[in-house]
């Protein structure tokens, strides 16, 4: 945009460098967007598992063994925390991204959408955990 220059006008454009550090809201935004890297990292770990599975039993067992190392466990704990935070913030922003949902003539509140999403995540995680638990014992 070009401000129309007349006479002594000299509009000052402020720099944007470091914009995200200026406001706690933006810092939190960068952190919750940043958790996406952990989600991607975990997807990569799973992908490596699939590749190792395709390479045969020895490779697969090697991958399983690697997952038992303290570093791998620490990494998984870190990813778990990041994922939980990721889901939390994702469902918090969700009401802002959806068109209005009407239930029995009333608009569904933001709290209802957020808690619905969180409940669905908790339920899906519990079911998955149960299935994997059953399969592995």
């Amino acid at each position, binding site marked *: *945009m070009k*401000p*129309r220059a007349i006479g*002594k*006008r*000299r*509009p*000052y*454009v*402020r720099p*944007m460098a470091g*914009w*995200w550090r*200026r*406001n706690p*809201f*933006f810092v939190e*935004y960068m952190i919750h*967007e940043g958790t996406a890297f952990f989600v991607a990292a975990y997807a990569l770990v799973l992908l490596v598992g699939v590749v190792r599975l395709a390479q045969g039993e020895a490779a697969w067992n090697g991958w399983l063994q690697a997952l038992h190392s303290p570093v791998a466990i620490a990494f998984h704990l870190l990813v778990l925390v990041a994922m939980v935070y990721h889901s939390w913030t994702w469902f918090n*922003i969700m*009401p*802002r*991204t*959806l*068109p*209005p949902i009407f239930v029995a003539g009333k*608009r569904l509140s933001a709290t209802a959408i957020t808690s619905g999403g969180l409940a669905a995540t908790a339920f899906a995680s519990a079911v998955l955990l149960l299935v994997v638990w059953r399969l592995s014992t």
Partner: protein
Amino acid sequence: MELQARRQNRKESRPAMSEIEKTIPIEVLRYRPEQDTEPVLQTFQVPFTDDMSVLQGLQYIKDYLDGSLSFRWSCRMAICGSCGMMVNGKPSLSCKTFLRDYYPGGLRIEALAHFPIERDLVIVMDDFIEKLESIKPYIIPKTPRALSEGEYLQTPEERDVYEQFSSCINCMLCYAACPQYGLNSKFVGPGIMALLHRYNMDSRDGGTEQRMELVHSEDGVFNCTAVGYCSEVCPKHVDPANAVNINKTESAKDYFLRFVAPKGAAK
């Protein structure tokens, strides 16, 4: 006579500024293009009472401390949208923000972020006004209608769909809250998208097709990364982030549906 007595009464109930003991430091970002190469902070000690808004604090500065301080204001009651500024880094209407909440630490006031500064707290809003005009912010009737046919009718349910988005007062706080607009001022931005959505959702309107060209365009909704701060700072609960994100879905639908039903190009 009675009027005079009432006036006298009012004078006594309001303390004169010199009698007020509390003062608060207000830092103001000054920019006087004829003497400053870049904005500089200037601190004023402002006496205040608990009912004084930040705007009133600025008015005190202008009246008693430095008459050259420039800022925009009009209604003093959060409806004209003129007095938006950054108060301690947060986009706020200065008439609706109170000095007492910053006592005793003080506060820093700057011109609305992401807009060029014209002078002191006055920003250049040409870009916003041009965008406002570009979205045809008025009802474009589906079919021309003669005056004799009477008014357009709308049910309360039909009104509810857009009412929230019609509360916008063009204060531009959402633009000062949007880093994507700050990084790329070509982006249509939150407030204008909310207004565009308001007309598109109006049952009396038939202009959606014309307005959607802008939504789909390079400068349209996909510049938004769902930071959400625009809705957070909106003094009228418009929720511009919602308007922008609903239109992302609309735009994506349009993108895929054009393979089924081709039509004109986007802007």
